[in-house]
């Protein structure tokens, strides 16, 4: 856990996605994560609770109350921490061990 974010879940990937692409709808996040909708829902609820993202209704819609998920200032700060962490790991790849880093990256990529 860093700043309340579970690094072994899809949460880091979600915050980086929203930062890169702007506000995202649930289906867009689920598609990008290629994850079960229940898994995505759990992650988004945890991220809302920790104020990394905020849900906002889509303006101009009809009777629907569909939302999109937008990154918050806290979410942006968390994303910068993640950037620094990844950068530092790559910088110290030789000391950490290339195989260990590759294995960690593979585990992170397949996180659920």
């Amino acid at each position: 856990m860093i700043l309340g974010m579970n690094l072994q879940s899809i949460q880091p990937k979600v915050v980086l996605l929203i930062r890169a692409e702007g506000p995202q709808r649930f289906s867009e996040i689920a598609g990008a994560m290629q994850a079960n909708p229940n898994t995505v829902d759990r992650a988004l609820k945890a991220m809302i609770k920790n104020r990394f993202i905020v849900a906002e209704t889509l303006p101009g819609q009809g009777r629907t109350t569909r939302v999109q998920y937008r990154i918050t200032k806290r979410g942006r700060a968390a994303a910068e921490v993640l950037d620094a962490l990844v950068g530092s790991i790559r910088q110290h790849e030789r000391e950490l061990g290339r195989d260990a880093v590759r294995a960690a990256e593979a585990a992170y990529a397949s996180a659920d």
Partner: protein
Amino acid sequence: MAQIFLLGPGHWNNPSQPPMSQTPLDVRRKLLKIFRQGGHDAFIMEDQRDIEGEDIVDRFYRILIERRTTDVVVYWPTHAKMQTTHDELVLLRSRHAFGTVPALWLLHDEAAASVAKGELKVNESPRSRYLEAVARLGVRSVPWTGQKGLYEAARWLVEEI
């Protein structure tokens, strides 16, 4: 610095059996304090001056404009009389037809409304039609649980606005 217009109820549904010792108006005053300590200008309807001959609709729009409102925050607990707040949200929705409205934040008890799988749902019926009307303005959900959670959410909002 934001200009925050804080809406919300003044009374509980059952004053003889309130969910907490403070009234909703007391809670809103506490929220005002949090917003002001955070450097924002925050205000509620109850504290604004009256102008003779002005009806409640005129008054609401006048305050919205006169105070140069940038953000409307709606305090939404459960077990409270929300009718006036709903009316004010409908006024905001109507104003939208004539121009822009401020950013709208729904500071809601998780028991009152919640977000699941990409949809904001009202858990206290029958209020969903008000939410549907306001949803078209683009409203941001800020959920909380318990009084401590409410004030933490408000402190987060101070930084986020």
